[in-house]
């Protein structure tokens, strides 16, 4: 089903196509510990995005020559299911997926105490089951939870969210059509530790001033997501507690 491009993505009252305000995140649902085999796992729905993440390790690095003598090798594979987008995506990894795997890994690595487990590997797998814009950010949010669920020691959780410019206005958490039709997209990952920006990319066109505003807007979005991440992790164990105490 091809979507027809609407005339306007944001109306005169600053309401977006899906009813959101300019600085509003899409509805989100997160779960942790969703897969049986993985050492850690998590699932996220952010708008129409549906993404699964699993973590295996730390374990002996294979092939062995990849092992790093003084820290763990953090690996990440971001992959889109063939049915996740409108036109079937070939299951072979595209150049885009290779790049995203790299930047996602580099967004997560500042949070992980890789120096604790030299010569091992920690493997993170992200499968996008359904995509609707901002999948790399949602992937980071969910992968960071999968790492925590695997019991990997971390400096903090990493939350990610994009800001961008659509029809002349700065907006938070762009969906697919806003990303495609908009003027700029700026995905950003943030970790509470040191107020760190661990992923930053942009394409489109922004003035220096707009850029500064967009960065701050994205950081604010990440802080909201970070709150949700913490709640989700805590809720999982509170649930176990309550179930028994009844």
């Amino acid at each position: 089903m091809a979507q027809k491009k609407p005339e306007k993505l944001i109306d005169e009252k600053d309401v977006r196509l899906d009813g959101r305000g300019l600085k509003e995140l899409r509805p989100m649902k997160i779960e942790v510990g969703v897969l049986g085999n993985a050492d850690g796992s998590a699932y996220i729905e952010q708008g129409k995005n549906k993404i699964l993440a699993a973590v295996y390790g730390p374990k002996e690095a294979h092939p062995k020559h990849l092992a790093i003598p003084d820290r763990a090798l953090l690996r990440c594979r971001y992959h889109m299911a063939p049915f996740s987008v409108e036109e079937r995506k070939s299951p072979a990894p595209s150049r885009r997926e290779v790049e995203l795997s790299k930047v996602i890994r580099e967004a997560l690595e500042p949070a992980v105490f890789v120096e604790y487990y030299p010569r091992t590997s920690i493997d993170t797998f992200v499968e996008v089951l359904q995509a609707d814009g901002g999948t790399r950010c949602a992937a980071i949010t969910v992968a960071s939870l999968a790492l925590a669920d695997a019991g990997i020691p971390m400096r903090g959780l990493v939350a990610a969210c994009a800001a961008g410019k659509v029809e002349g206005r700065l907006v938070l958490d762009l969906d697919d059509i806003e990303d495609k039709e908009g003027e700029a997209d700026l995905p950003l990952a943030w970790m509470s530790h040191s107020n760190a920006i661990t992923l930053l990319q942009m394409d489109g066109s922004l003035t220096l001033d707009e850029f500064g505003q967009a960065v701050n807007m994205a950081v604010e979005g990440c802080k909201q997501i970070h709150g949700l991440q913490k709640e989700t992790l805590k809720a999982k164990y509170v649930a176990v507690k309550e179930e028994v105490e009844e």
Partner: protein
Amino acid sequence: MPAFYERREIVTPGDLLAEDNYVAGDNTYKEDGKIYATRVGLVGYDDRKVFVVALKAFYVPFIGDMVIGKVVEVGLGSWIIDINAPYPAVLRASDAFNRPFKPQRDDMLQILDVGDLVMAKIIAYDRTRAPLLTVREPELGKVERGQIVEITPTKIPRVIGRKGSMITMLKQRTNCQITVGQNGVILVSGRSPEDEQLAVMAIRKIDEEAHTSGLTDRVTQMVRSEKRGVEHGSKET
């Protein structure tokens, strides 16, 4: 010198636990005078030490730990043992033979083959080398029979209980020998399969409900009622 959480409150990685003159304990890190959690878990205090009891973690070898592992490789003069840790462990043939190993004389497969289960103690480990095992103590060595239960390693202390209360209760009430590997592998051996099955069920329950209070009582009750059921059922047949 504030502390921000109550004892046994759940925290997540990056949560600020305490400031100033606290000491960083397990599953925490200190930076610029602040102590943060590194894992999901329950906060604990021990005098000035802040720590987190991890709700989920993997096994990290520790010298002196008794572990139960699987032989995955027979090498030249040593076995590689998978002990559910980030690093595979090594057991030297000379240790198992209790004399210098001579390949022309000693057949390693006579002692341990791939797929065998072995009970061993960690005698060396420093993160740069593979953990080194020994079997030169009574009760250690190849495991010949019994049932294996694998649980989250962080829950081993609950299986043992305060001053061994849980495990003592389990052993008495199920008539089973229960050997706890610190790496989360537990070996149960009893006189009848029913006894073993009961012990396994009890351990699974502990794994699921480890971080709740009144656990020993609930497990005791479960064992008691299950046992009655088994006896009752056997009478009917």
